[in-house]
């Protein structure tokens, strides 16, 4: 008897979240070995995280929210310096970034509608149905498209790192482990969708919106496997890879996803300020 797929999913997410916080706490504890200066340039001995946040708020006030937001987007997320030096690398990064951010946002919205509004409060209605039904054309297309962006981005990364191998690139275990996890997540995502379509026997007029999952389902259909079992285990593998990445995140190279935008924004603003001084 297999445990309910979604029960396992939500328990896993809960545990991940609970574990992620102390892991992040360890990280912040290490950063706190460094010094922080307050607005008057004095070294802060206690409450360093608070002082850092106060400095951040002061910087936003000084520069204006709109300007900080534009620097955050251009330097923190889109890395315009990277655009200037390497378009190929910029594109691979851009595709993965947009794909991840969009899929993350979509997952949060879906989770909110499915688990909070519908599951917890029992809200019904067309909006809830639209968001939570995986066969809704728009949701299916969006999920597939954003996943495809990540997949293409990841392929470009792999081509650059292992085939083109530019002189400045150094590949260490740290880089490979992150790529393996990302690849595992992507390689289990489309099969999971294909197995779902086969398991639910989704009619073609609806299934075609999963424009990658459905062709894969058509390819697999002659095998006539137990699709429910296959869907269950690929979904579990997909979730396990996501959880592994989340737990490994604070100590992996992938942590730059959170830190780089902050650093790039802070330092770009400071560089601007110095240039105008």
């Amino acid at each position, binding site marked *: 008897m297999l445990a309910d797929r979604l029960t396992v999913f939500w328990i896993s997410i809960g545990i991940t979240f609970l574990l992620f916080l102390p*892991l992040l706490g*360890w*990280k912040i*504890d*290490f*950063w*706190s*070995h*460094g*010094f*922080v*200066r307050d607005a008057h*340039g*004095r070294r802060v001995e206690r409450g*360093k995280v608070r002082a*850092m946040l106060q400095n951040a708020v002061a910087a936003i006030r000084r520069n204006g929210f709109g300007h900080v937001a534009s620097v955050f987007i251009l*330097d923190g997320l889109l*890395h315009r*310096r*990277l655009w200037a*030096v*390497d378009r190929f*690398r910029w594109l691979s990064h851009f595709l993965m970034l947009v794909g991840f951010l969009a899929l993350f946002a979509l997952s949060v919205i879906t989770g909110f509608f499915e688990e909070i509004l519908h599951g917890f409060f029992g809200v019904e209605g067309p909006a809830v149905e639209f968001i939570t039904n995986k066969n809704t054309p728009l949701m299916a297309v969006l999920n597939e498209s954003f996943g495809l962006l990540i997949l293409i981005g990841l392929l470009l990364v792999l081509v650059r790192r292992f085939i083109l191998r*530019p*002189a*400045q*690139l*150094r590949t*260490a275990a*740290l*880089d490979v482990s992150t790529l393996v996890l990302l690849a595992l997540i992507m390689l289990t995502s489309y099969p999971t969708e294909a197995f779902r379509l086969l398991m639910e026997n989704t009619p073609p007029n609806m299934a075609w919106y999963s424009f990658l999952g459905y062709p894969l389902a058509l390819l697999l259909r002659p095998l006539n496997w137990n699709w429910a079992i296959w869907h269950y285990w690929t979904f579990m593998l997909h979730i396990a890879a996501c959880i592994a990445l989340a737990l490994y995140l*604070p*100590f992996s*190279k992938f*942590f*730059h996803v959170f*830190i*780089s935008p*902050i*650093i*790039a924004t*802070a*330092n*770009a603003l*400071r*560089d601007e300020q*110095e*240039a105008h*001084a």
Partner: protein
Amino acid sequence: MSARRLDYSAFSFQQLMELDACTRCGECILWCPTYAEKEDEAITPLKKIEHVRRFAGSEYGFLARLFGPRGIDEGELHKHSQGAYDCTLCGRCHTVCPVHIDTRPLWLAMREQLVAAGHFPAIMSEVRERIVTQHNNLGESNANRLAWAGNLEEPPRVVEPPAQAEVLYFVGCVSSLYPMAYSIPQSLAGILRAAAVPFAVMGADEWCCGFPLIIAGMSAEAHALARHNVDAVRAAGAKRLVTTCPSCYHTWREIYPDILGESLGFEVLHAVELLDELLDDGRLRLGEMQQVVTYHDPCDLGRTSGIYEAPRRVLRSIPGITFYEMRDHHDRALCCGGGGDVEMADPELVNMVARRRLLQAEEVGAGVIATACQQCKRTLSGAARKEKIRIRTFDITEIIWEAVQNAGL
């Protein structure tokens, strides 16, 4: 493997975050002037960050938190130290880092950490000893600081408190004590007289600004030097302090207010800013010079202090000068190799970096490299002689003084 622990208090909170912001893309490697000459991975910005991240991981990483710290590998620490002290601190890596990691201060924090751990080149201890006891980085008697003025027709006025000096010229150790650089203060003295700017120097009361110690990771010793120098300038009643050395300039303008925790109360200028001002005010008349000139941005004046245009305006104001930019200029300018105290630990590496810069000047057909730094002049001139490259290097003050003399003043 020992149970050594490292101290991270030299890093700022943000710098420790920056270790995690590095994506290991390696863009910095393409622009690192010392790695280009000495292919030692430990020199690369990427590896330096990786080293510290690994040291931190062995003490504060996931496994260390669960099973206890593992201690630091002394061999790896030694390798890291060699890489960290082979860096010229040119800061070019910062200008190309896609996530804007502020590399130069990060390298300084690493050196501070290495000094605290006792892993630094032995020569640095000697430099520290010289500066702390003799107040200059050559270890000569500080009374010799006016040697450069020995053959001037009119020696500069040495300020003695409470004597007032509106403009005080802080000559710096290299220009004061290396005969090869004497012509820089001599030229500035000539220019200031020609422009009728009253000025004075501090003579033996001028102490090393402390920059060599600060960049060696020994900033604690710089405090006393800062205190002495700032008090001396205040006692002289100076309104403006002028330097010809970009490192002194940076130290006075940025580091002194920081380590003393107070504003200086007087203006700090690099000579190129003053020259730019004097030319703009029409206080200097320049004669013709038929030269093909290129400009080498000193790292501490350009990338560290953000001064790029003033020296170019000054050079372009000389009649007859043909000015060309080298392939790498402004914030992407190649380092001459003379920074970061590398010369003390690895002079051959410095020569190799300087050679590459000279070839860039040769590429544009320049006969003269103008710079605004006595150390760049020394480094580039020395390499040109050694490598038999027919390019002369002058400080801008020397070129302007010649132009002033050509004007017949």
